[in-house]
Every structure is written in structure tokens, then in C-alpha cells.
């Protein structure tokens, strides 16, 4: 994987031609594994993200929580969400989930994006924003089921976690992974991470009494390149609004890719229609019409 060719684009937003990287390399897809059952909420990943990406410091305000800010920002792409979940027996489960771009196999942001090359999906699975091409329409925000893309009003561009595509392209792990002290974050191929995650979930079910432990890799977006191990995979919402069944709005799927061109063509039929009318019926002219000089000639045919 330690090769730049994994950064060949296989999907490009708003693009006319097929993507150059499509089916052109055999490297495996990468994946970030977040084991929420061993996350200690230390925020090292938050700091690493800000440091590696040279993001500016954001003034924050105390908000009755350990969470750094209410949600990720255009210059804060990685946020641990803290949630106090009350179990039916009254005990409290303090949940910490690292929130960032999920790098969906079927990215809603990319589907929604109207700008050529503003959002690309690389062969290794990373979904990356190219702000050069971003037109700032914000449709990606609407397309994303995970509430991730963030609009910066001063640059009029949208930003999010890059999965450190700059590092991964050079064969390094993302900065957050490198900083994680407990090993709750892991990075590798999707297959490997999926395997480790399932093993861990099984361990949690068999040995630690979490009967509903499981892996979060939602198939409704084709799977993601960030996967979670959850204590209770039946209720991901408790981890700070992790959607149980993330959906890309149909506006950006079949509406955009089927109905838009079809209906657009119908609208063009309007133009054809009136021209046809002119040809077949001719114009309606004010009456009385002046006598046509070539009436007789017409009759000669």
C-alpha cells in the first residue's frame, strides 16, 4: 500500500469522463478501526489531527461536557464525542466515540457534489476534498449521512478529515492512529481491520458480557473505511448520533443521475416541439393575412 498509486481517483464528483483510476490497480482498500470499547477519550487523536494538518486553534467554551466542542469544525476534523448513556438499570455508561469522516465506499458527499473534481474517492477508499475545485455549494453537507463536511464561510469551501491521504500516500498511518496511546485506533487494510474488529466483538460477546457487541460498517453506504467496534451495535445512536442506517438522500442518487438528465431532455423537447409546430402548422399571423403572391405557384406543384 505504501505507494502513491493508491491515490488514484476512482470516483470524481461532477466529472464528465470515467475516472482514470477505476479498476486500474490491485492494491487493497485501507481502513481505520476505532474500538470504542477501549477508547479512553484522551483526545490525543484530536491534537494529532490539529498538529499534522496545521489547523488553527479554535476558542472553545465550557459546555457541561468533556467534549471539546459540540461538533467537528472546518478546522477541527476529529472530535471525540462523549455521551452519558443511562442503562435501563440506572447505571451510566460513559461512551466515547471518535467522530470523523467515515470515508464511505459509496460517499454521499461525492454524489451530491456538483463541482468537477472537488471530491474524489481514491482506489484505497479514502474520500478526499479538493478545495481548489470546491464551489462551496454545501450540497455535500446534505449528502453526508454522518454530518461531517464543514463549510468555512470565510473561504467558501468545505473541509473534512482527509484520512491523512498525504501520509497514507507515503505509506504512513494517519496522524490520529499514530497518536493513539491505547491501540484503540488501528489502521490497515479493510479486510484486516474487519477481521480484527469482528474478533474483538466476539471477544466482547463471549468474555465480557456485551451480548450485542458488534462492528459498525454500514452497508447502506457500501460500507465505510472507518469502522467501529461498539458495545451495543444495535443502538449506535447512543454514541453521539451515529446513524443506525445511514442513507444518502435520493436527491443525489437516482434523482441526480437518472431523472435530472431525463427530465432535462424533456424540457429540451419543448424547444423541439415549438419548432415542429412552426414547421408543421406555421405561424399564426394577424388577420387578415395579406394575399400570398405565390399562391398560384404553390398550386403548380
Amino acid at each position, binding site marked *: 500500500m505504501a505507494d502513491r498509486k493508491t491515490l488514484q481517483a476512482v470516483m470524481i*464528483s*461532477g*466529472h*464528465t469522463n470515467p475516472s482514470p483510476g477505476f479498476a486500474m490497480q490491485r492494491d487493497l482498500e485501507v481502513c481505520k478501526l476505532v474500538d470504542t470499547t477501549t477508547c479512553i477519550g484522551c483526545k490525543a487523536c484530536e491534537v494529532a489531527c490539529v498538529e499534522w494538518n496545521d489547523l488553527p486553534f479554535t476558542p472553545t467554551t465550557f459546555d457541561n461536557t468533556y467534549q471539546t466542542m459540540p461538533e467537528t469544525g472546518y478546522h477541527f476534523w476529529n472530535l471525540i464525542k462523549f455521551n452519558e448513556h443511562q442503562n435501563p438499570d440506572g447505571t451510566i455508561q460513559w461512551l466515547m466515540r471518535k467522530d470523523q469522516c467515515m470515508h464511505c465506499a459509496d460517499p454521499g458527499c461525492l454524489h451530491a457534489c*456538483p*463541482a*468537477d473534481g472537488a471530491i474524489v474517492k481514491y482506489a484505497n477508499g479514502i474520500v478526499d476534498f479538493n478545495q481548489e*475545485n*470546491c*464551489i*462551496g*455549494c*454545501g*450540497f455535500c*453537507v*446534505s*449528502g*453526508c*449521512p454522518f*454530518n461531517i463536511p464543514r*463549510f468555512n464561510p470565510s473561504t*467558501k469551501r468545505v473541509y473534512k478529515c482527509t484520512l491523512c491521504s498525504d501520509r497514507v500516500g507515503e505509506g504512513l498511518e494517519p496522524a490520529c492512529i499514530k497518536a493513539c496511546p491505547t491501540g484503540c485506533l488501528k489502521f490497515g487494510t479493510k479486510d484486516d481491520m474487519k477481521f480484527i474488529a469482528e474478533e474483538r466483538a466476539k471477544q466482547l460477546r463471549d468474555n465480557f458480557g456485551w451480548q450485542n457487541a458488534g462492528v459498525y460498517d454500514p452497508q447502506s453506504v457500501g460500507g465505510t473505511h472507518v469502522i467501529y467496534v461498539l458495545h451495543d451495535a444495535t443502538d449506535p445512536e447512543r454514541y453521539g448520533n451515529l446513524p443506525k442506517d445511514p442513507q444518502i*438522500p*435520493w*436527491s*443525489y442518487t437516482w*434523482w441526480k443521475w437518472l431523472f*435530472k*438528465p431525463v*427530465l*432535462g431532455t*424533456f*424540457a429540451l*423537447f*419543448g*424547444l423541439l*416541439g*415549438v*419548432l415542429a*409546430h*412552426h414547421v408543421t*402548422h*406555421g*405561424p*399564426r*399571423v*394577424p*388577420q*387578415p*393575412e*395579406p*394575399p400570398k403572391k405565390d399562391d398560384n405557384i404553390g398550386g403548380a406543384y
Partner: protein
Amino acid sequence: MSSRAIEHFDDKARETFEHAGRTTVYGGELLRHPVYTRILHWTVALFFFLALFSGFGIYLPWLFRWFTPIFGGGQLSRIMHPYFGVAFVFFFALQALNWIQPMLWAPGDTRWLRNIKTIASGEEKMDPPDTGFFNAGQKAMFWEIVAGCIVYLITGIILWAGAKTFGRISVAISYVLHDISALIMLGGIFIHIYLSTIGEPGTFHSMIRGAVSEAWAWTFHPAWYKQVTGRDPVQACEEARRQMNAGSKS
């Protein structure tokens, strides 16, 4: 605003704009659109097309992104599009106030619509005698634009402010409604342009010079002709025909 206040506003606007421009009405012609109406029409038209073309690249980028360079690229297209749209809606709103009286639906309009096949096919050379200042087709188009503008405005503001303010689902729905509104209006605009140019010759002048020939008036808007001249449009037409025939024989 009460309807009286609207009228007052429009009257005042018409009066003001009459000083800004000139409408020459020659013999055998009738005043159709005053300066104010014509300026509004072309302003609306301008912003309509700016919005339309700047929207194309966003509508279906893989097909239409060659529109965006016209506006200085994707970013500027996206920045300008909502402003074009707002201007379009604003000026059309003025036009709507200006025209609301003649655009009100009349019983004859329903008959006109029922008859549309014979009219459009040219079977009937002249419009039905109760066709007033605007025919039912024009009125339908007008009200479609009014409705479209409301949809544009609501969905446009949602899209403009974005998912952060209105939520991703309302943006997604607005995205579709905005498109539908544009598609309908785009279809309508073809008919409008056709009929006002080569489809019904003489119409174009009404929006350029503001005047139309009497023949145009009795042919397409007989009731209006009757209203402004006091003469019967059919008789006037027959009279003209006789004169024409006489002229051609001499």
C-alpha cells in the same frame, strides 16, 4: 398592501417610467405595453437567463459544466446564481403586481383552454372574441412563474443557507423541487419565446416598441381590441380584408 395601494404603486411607477422612455404609436397601431412594463420584462428576462445559465453547471455538472466559465468558473457561478435568482424573483414580483389585474382568471379563459387545440393548430385564425388583454395561455404561464418563483425563493434560501441551518433532508428535498421548478419554467420559456417571435409575428414589437398593429390586436386579443377601440374586432377584420382585396385588385 391592499389592492388599491398596489394599483397606486403601479400607476406611480408607470408614470415615472413614462418619462424615462418613449412609446411611439403610429396610425393603425395600439399601445400595448408601457415603458415600465417593457423594462421590467427585459430585466426579468435578463436575470432569468443569468440564473438559468449559471444554474446549468450546478444542475448537471457532467453535462453542462461548460456553462460555468461564462461566469468566471464554478465558484463564481455558485456565488452569483442565488443573487441572479433573487433579482429575477424581485423584478418578476414587480411585474406580477403590475399585471395582476389583467392576469386574473376569467370564465372565457377556461373555454379558451378547452379550445386550445383548434387555436394552436391554426384552425381558428382568430382567437375567440372574449380573449382579453392576455389570453389564457399567457395567464397560465404567468401564474406558473408566480408559483415557480415562490418555490425558487423557498428552496433557494434553504439551499443557500445550507444543511447546517435547515438540515440535510430539507436541503435534499429543496434540491429536487428547485430543479423541477426550473425544468417547468424552462419548458414554458421555449413556448413563450416561440410565440412572441416567429410563432405569432408582430408580438415581439409589443415588448420592444410597446405598440402593436390593430390587426394583431383584433386577431389575438379581440376583447381587448374592442375595449380600447370600441369597434367590433370581427367587423374591423372584415373591413380590413375588404380594403385589402380592393387594394390588391386596383
